[in-house]
């Protein structure tokens, strides 16, 4: 009880400090200069209409490469931690089979959801979205199949190959930029008319690679988790 009171006191003190600090930060006024620069020069420099996408893929492309690596490390670490758990769990539980409505419905919805994920990452430079949400939508489509079909599985071989190919595509595009334009992840394709689907140079290519990579990584993660419950 006394422990709880002290914890509550600490939380209240920290909340008051945070409030006093935040009261000094004005809400709703421009704060950074670099954001203004990106907004004014983004379309002229790179040709992409969605400035957030331009920042994620090209202005801060190296940063995104590092973050994709962190995602890969987390998925691989999960596979490693769960590896021993699978073998000991030999006894089979009795599981309720999925109903007919669910099986039929998910079989129809699966290709549509994959198509929707592809739409999100291909149009990343025109509409909200991009490689990260597109990959998550594709992984959700696989989750739908995992929930409703007992025997259906995503083979680890294929997810690993897709993920490795997508990661290599990302690095190879960066190296071509180094060779042609002079620096890593530099744009080397024509910029096109802003607003068209085929515009913005290498942004759609890199976002497609990120979409495949995130989707296959999260699918492998879900497959690993699923094997532990069998």
């Amino acid at each position, binding site marked *: 009880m006394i422990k709880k009171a002290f914890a509550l006191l600490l939380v209240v003190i920290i909340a008051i400090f945070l409030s006093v600090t935040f009261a000094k930060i004005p809400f*709703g006024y421009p704060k950074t200069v670099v954001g203004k620069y990106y907004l004014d020069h983004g379309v002229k420099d790179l040709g992409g209409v969605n400035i957030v996408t331009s920042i994620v893929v090209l202005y801060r492309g190296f940063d995104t490469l590092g973050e994709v690596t962190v995602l890969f490390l987390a998925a691989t670490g999960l596979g490693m931690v769960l590896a021993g758990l699978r073998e000991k769990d030999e006894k089979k539980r009795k599981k309720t089979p999925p109903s007919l409505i669910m099986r039929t419905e998910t079989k129809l919805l699966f290709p549509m959801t994959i198509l929707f994920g592809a739409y999100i990452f291909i149009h990343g430079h025109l509409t909200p*979205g*991009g490689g990260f949400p597109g990959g*998550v939508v594709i992984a*959700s489509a696989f*989750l739908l199949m995992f929930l409703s079909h007992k025997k259906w599985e995503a083979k680890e071989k294929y997810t690993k190959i897709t993920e490795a190919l997508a990661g290599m595509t990302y690095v190879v595009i960066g190296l071509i930029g180094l060779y042609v334009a002079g620096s890593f992840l530099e744009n080397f394709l024509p910029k096109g008319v802003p607003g068209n689907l085929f515009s913005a140079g290498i942004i759609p290519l890199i976002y497609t690679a990120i979409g495949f990579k995130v989707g296959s990584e999260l699918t492998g993660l*879900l497959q690993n988790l699923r094997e532990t419950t069998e």
Partner: protein
Amino acid sequence: MSSLILVVSAILVIFMIVGAVVTIHARDLLVAIIASAIVDLVLAVLFYILQAPDVAITQASIMGGLTTAIFLVVIKKTERYEQ
């Protein structure tokens, strides 16, 4: 942002805080997971109101299923009630 949107976002913030309190307070971990889904949902709407549609789409796609499914696998594997 007009005052109508401010009122709507104030109501949504109250919902989010109620959901967070239920997440912390519930003894049944299944209820806690469902309440944290409410928090994620309202957070996505707040990102949308703050004119960040890229972030809102990411939060919405994460919220729709992935986190809930991962937590459910773990409470299936371990135990559902908190002692």
